[in-house]
């Protein structure tokens, strides 16, 4: 009877185990791989300017994806973030002339948070399916934005300096939006790992009955969660309007599907209980780099989209292979 010792493992096995226990590593490796491919496709693109641009565009995506990650952890989803962000952006641009920058920023976050609270009440207290609830509040938000837009057509719009500076400016080559994003990301990562609230998100997502048994009133957590999601979406809208500098009525709406994609590519499960925000951030970067690839690929639009889809598939397939058990 031999005792196969625990450390008597081949290097390959050990590498695999390491990758499995640190799922962020393969994700980052895949990201780097994509960048290398891009550089081969378009030599010279990998420069300071491009990196800056990529980060600039990845940040709003990663922030909206934070809303998806957090809600998905509880088995939910937030389809209203695209419109919530857009509303904040539009309100700030139209109110800045009237209220001044600080006032406009403060006022612009209110509707986003209200959408979040409405979601929280619907999902947490009335048990409406998050998908329907957030789809519904998204529609309601869209309508309200259009009505609001009617009332302010004559006032014109302008993007506050500070937001433009945050959205497009750079300091020592680094995008200024990092000033908002890095603390936010650190806070989210910390909150998920080291706070009671974070623990409860995972707990509710995996087994709500078990959480209840442990004395958790889940509606409280859900309400706080969706309100937070709305707030993050609102802040994202502000950063995004600073970046695009054109407050349109559908500004951040196109980011909705990619925000879900960034979270799932980063390893978050839509059924709840599994996922990390650091994975989501890398997922957002991967998607942004893929979009660039799609832009610089010279081929008909149809084949371009096919390539885009296939790359997403291959990247995640490789990732799954590397990280799965035995």
């Amino acid at each position, binding site marked *: 009877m031999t005792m196969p010792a625990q450390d008597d493992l081949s290097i390959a096995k050990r590498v695999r185990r390491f990758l499995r226990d640190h799922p962020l590593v393969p994700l980052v490796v895949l990201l780097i791989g994509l960048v290398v491919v891009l550089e081969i496709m*378009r030599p*010279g*693109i990998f*420069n300071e*300017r*491009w990196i800056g*641009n990529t980060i600039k*565009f990845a940040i709003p995506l990663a922030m909206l994806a934070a809303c998806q990650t957090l809600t998905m952890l509880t088995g939910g989803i937030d389809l209203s973030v695209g419109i919530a962000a857009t509303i904040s952006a539009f309100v700030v641009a139209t109110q800045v002339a009237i209220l001044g920058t600080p006032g406009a920023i403060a006022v612009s976050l209110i509707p986003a948070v209200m959408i979040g609270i409405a979601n929280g009440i619907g999902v947490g207290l009335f048990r409406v399916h998050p998908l329907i609830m957030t789809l519904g509040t998204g529609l309601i938000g*869209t309508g309200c*934005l*259009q009505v609001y*837009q*009617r009332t302010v*057509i*004559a*006032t*014109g*719009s302008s993007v506050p300096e500070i937001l433009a500076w945050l959205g*497009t400016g750079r300091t020592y080559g680094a995008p200024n939006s990092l000033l908002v994003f890095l603390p936010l990301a650190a806070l989210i990562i910390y909150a998920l790992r080291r706070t009671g609230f974070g623990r409860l998100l995972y707990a509710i997502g995996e087994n709500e009955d078990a959480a209840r048994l442990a004395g958790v009133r889940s509606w409280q957590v859900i309400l706080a969660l969706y309100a937070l999601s709305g707030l993050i979406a609102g802040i994202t809208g502000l950063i*995004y309007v600073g*970046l*695009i*500098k*054109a*407050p*349109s*009525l*559908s*500004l*951040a*709406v*196109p*980011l909705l599907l990619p925000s879900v994609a960034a979270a799932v590519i980063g390893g978050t499960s839509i059924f709840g209980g599994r996922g990390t925000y650091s994975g989501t951030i890398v997922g957002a970067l991967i998607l*942004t780099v893929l*979009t*660039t690839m799609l*832009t*610089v690929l*010279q081929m008909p*639009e*149809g084949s371009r989209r096919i390539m885009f889809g296939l790359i997403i598939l291959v990247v995640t397939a490789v990732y799954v292979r590397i990280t799965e058990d035995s």
Partner: protein
Amino acid sequence: ASDYTIGVSNTVQGNGWREEMVCAMKAQAKASGKVKSLNIAHRNTDAAGQLEDIRNLIEAGVDAIVVNPANPEGINAAIKEATDKGIVVVAVDQAVTEPSAYVLSNNQEEYAYLGAKWLFEEIGGKGSVVYMRGAAGAAADDDRDKGFKRALAEYPDVKVAHEVFTGWQQDQGKQQILDYIATGIPFDGVWTSGIDNVIVDAFVESDVPLVPIVGADNAGFVGQLNSVDGLVGAAVTNPGSVGGAGVTLAIQLLDGDKPDAQTVLVDPQLWENKTDEGKAQLAAAADPSLDPEWPVSIMIPGWTTYSKDDIIACKGPGE
């Protein structure tokens, strides 16, 4: 007497151009004094969804329908059903192939041709341009592509360095041009399908020399043509107010005045900021109080009778 009810069907929501179109319809209906109410079906959908909306409008008993068609052929069946019931149908912005409908459309092919020709001329008839199209698979984009290709054929030394679809989305257009600028591959001009002001911003923010840029007459871009140092460019008009013109045509038809032709094309104008004449046109057209996404050509002489205040108020009859 103000007793007509007019139905409106539109399939894109949340876009400044379409908002202006709807406001022009409302303002014109009110200004005409002949419309009791407007019944507007306005949402994001496809041709099949528009069929549904038109049929609902028929059921609702409207006298005329002004429609911005999702594509030229897809809604013919419902248009036929409407005209069979004696309802007047006017297609605006985009033509339809159903012969019983009247068409009052912006000339999309000409839009692209005019701008592209100016651009190729501007870069001296040779060099490479970035071709930033609209949404892949959209009928209007296809029409514009025909115009662009026609101009391209006239300038054999002009090459398309890069062709992308912005999906008519500001953020996408901006990221695409920034990505392309980052590759460092030189190019001599940019043609856009209306996603224009973010392109100028991208050049300014990236600190690279501006190249000639062609866009639409959106308030934001027109303002930039007037104010951005070193920007040479041209705005091609693509009036959203064509909606108001459509309402006028529908009322005329209901009143029994048949126009000479079934199809009226509104031909675009080009305003460039190279010549003094062009500068004057642009300065006159500029309107910083408008939403940057709104085309500045808020009226079509001969077709619309409302005032600027009317269209900005965006109120229909009875509101």
